[in-house]
């Protein structure tokens, strides 16, 4: 690894730790109230969803229209586990999250094997159908609470344990979001990620270059579903009540919009757009009736002037940002000297 890369990673790490420390402190002191805390949690959950969908749609180039379906599978799996396992929630919650990811991944295998062996956009239609079927199944099954919703999902830390549940939940969502970004970023930079990108660029040429396209398509799709499942598990324990209506087609589209807006094939773009598009509807609350209108208009404007999304396929680096700030200072300094 080159020295400049090491510095870049170090700066990013410091930034992440600082961000966590500050927000966790503010939450524990109550400066960030439950409303804002909820928005921050949703930002992290949406980051996980957006970055993972970007792997399937931005890097692999397969349109997935049922990401909320995988999320709902994860949400119900995790919730049912913490409700029924009988373990203390501090223990059962991490297990539940892992299970949520694994069950979602299992579903992605079942629908991915027939759909991904073919070339073309079959996956879009199949995942769309999957999302709807899951929603209807949740409504019909006896143990999911049906349309009334699944209630009684425990908070991540019981009140008598003395642990601040808000801080703990924030820690979970924050670090899992960071972990998701890290894993998908380094996956993309590995030989496996290159193979995935090759499939997006030209599937026939990828196959002719010795890439087992079916394997890599499945791999990326399963990884994406796994993280969507984890996001679902986090969501279930954040809201406490699961309503199947939340996981409808619109939510899948909402996540896809975040991916497209940030840039198909840009992880940092996904992080930024997930953050902005989670805050935006809340910030627009004062316009009440018009907020979805404003939201749509903003999207249209971005797409008109920047069709490849905010960042396209580029990545944003904190190190470069810092450098740029210092460089401009230095440069202006130089200019002044020359003038003198």
């Amino acid at each position, binding site marked *: 690894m080159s020295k400049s890369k090491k510095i870049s990673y170090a700066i990013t790490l410091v930034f992440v730790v600082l961000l966590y420390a500050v927000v966790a402190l503010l939450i524990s002191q109550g400066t960030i109230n439950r409303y804002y805390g909820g928005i921050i949690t949703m930002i992290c959950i949406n980051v996980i969803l957006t970055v993972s969908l970007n792997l399937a749609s931005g890097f692999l180039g397969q349109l997935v229209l049922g990401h909320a379906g995988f999320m709902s599978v994860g949400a119900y799996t995790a919730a049912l586990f913490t409700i029924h396992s009988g373990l203390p929630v501090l223990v059962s919650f991490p297990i539940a999250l892992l299970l949520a990811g694994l069950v979602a991944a299992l579903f992605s295998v079942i629908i991915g094997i027939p759909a991904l062996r073919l070339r073309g956009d079959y996956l879009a239609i199949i995942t769309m159908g999957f999302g709807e079927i899951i929603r209807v199944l949740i409504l019909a099954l006896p143990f999911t609470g049906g349309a009334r919703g699944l209630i009684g999902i425990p908070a991540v830390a019981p009140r008598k344990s003395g642990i601040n549940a808000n801080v703990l939940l924030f820690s979970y969502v924050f670090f899992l979001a960071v972990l998701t970004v890290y894993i998908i970023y380094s996956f993309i930079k590995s030989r496996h990620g*290159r193979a995935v*990108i090759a499939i997006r660029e*030209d599937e*026939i040429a990828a*196959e*002719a*270059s010795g890439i087992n396209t079916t394997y890599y398509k499945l791999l990326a799709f399963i990884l994406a579903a796994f993280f969507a499942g984890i996001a679902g598990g986090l969501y279930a324990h954040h809201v406490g009540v699961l309503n199947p209506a939340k996981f409808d087609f619109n939510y899948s589209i909402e996540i896809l919009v975040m991916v497209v807006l940030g840039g198909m094939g840009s992880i940092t773009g996904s992080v930024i757009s997930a953050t902005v598009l989670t805050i935006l509807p809340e910030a627009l609350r004062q316009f009440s009736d018009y907020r979805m209108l404003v939201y749509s208009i903003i999207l249209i404007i971005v797409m008109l002037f920047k069709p490849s999304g905010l960042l396209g*396929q580029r990545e944003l680096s904190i190190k470069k940002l810092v450098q740029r700030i210092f460089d401009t200072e230095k440069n202006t300094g130089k200019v002044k000297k020359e003038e003198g």
Partner: protein
Amino acid sequence: MSVLETRNLGISFGGLQALQDVHFSINEGEIIGLIGPNGAGKTTVFNLLTDVYIPTDGVIELDGENIVGQKTYQITQNGIARTFQNIRLFKDISVIDNVKIAMNSQMKYSVLSGIFRFPAYRREEKEVSKRAHELLQVFHLDENAHDLARNLPYGQQRKLEIARALATNPKVLLLDEPAAGMNPTETMELMETIRLIRDKFQVAVLLIEHDMNFVMGICEHIVVLDYGKIIAEGNAEEIRNNPKVIAAYLGGE
């Protein structure tokens, strides 16, 4: 020794017999030309060799082993690499990554190793990076290693496609109209490059080309296809004077 051999190779699409009794063999390090009028079935031969179509008759033997029924990527891994008539690069990624992708099947590290940057990842990535640069140097593309493939001029894109095919360590290289759209200087340069890679990589080359100066200039053996059948075979001199070939190209009795 023959490295690739086809016997009685044929395919029909419905009632149309596109290829019939195609029979040829390529020796190690040999350069063979496949020519014929438009629609003769030249690219179809390539597509059969690489499992884009599955032959309805015959066998294809690579190093004495029948490869009919193997998947495209397996055939590539076993030693047949190809380029395409209309260049198919991975356009939105860097030149060097185009080459590294073709080396994927020679790398071994696992998904976990890739994500958590285990020593196997570092070692293999370093090695592949070195090999990719060496390969690009052969084609004078090393200065452009970090440019996007789409930003290369046309002639260099053709070269990159050949470099990518070579990166899979092939025994046989299939080139589909490598000189298409090149000016005479570029064509001359390409002939030099093909001879160079044959010598350097000990690879047999089977190429389709319409530029007769190119084919006659470089190929040791030429196979002529017309209406899906081989009508002539031989060296440049024999082909040039073969009445059947002249008739196929210019019309005749």
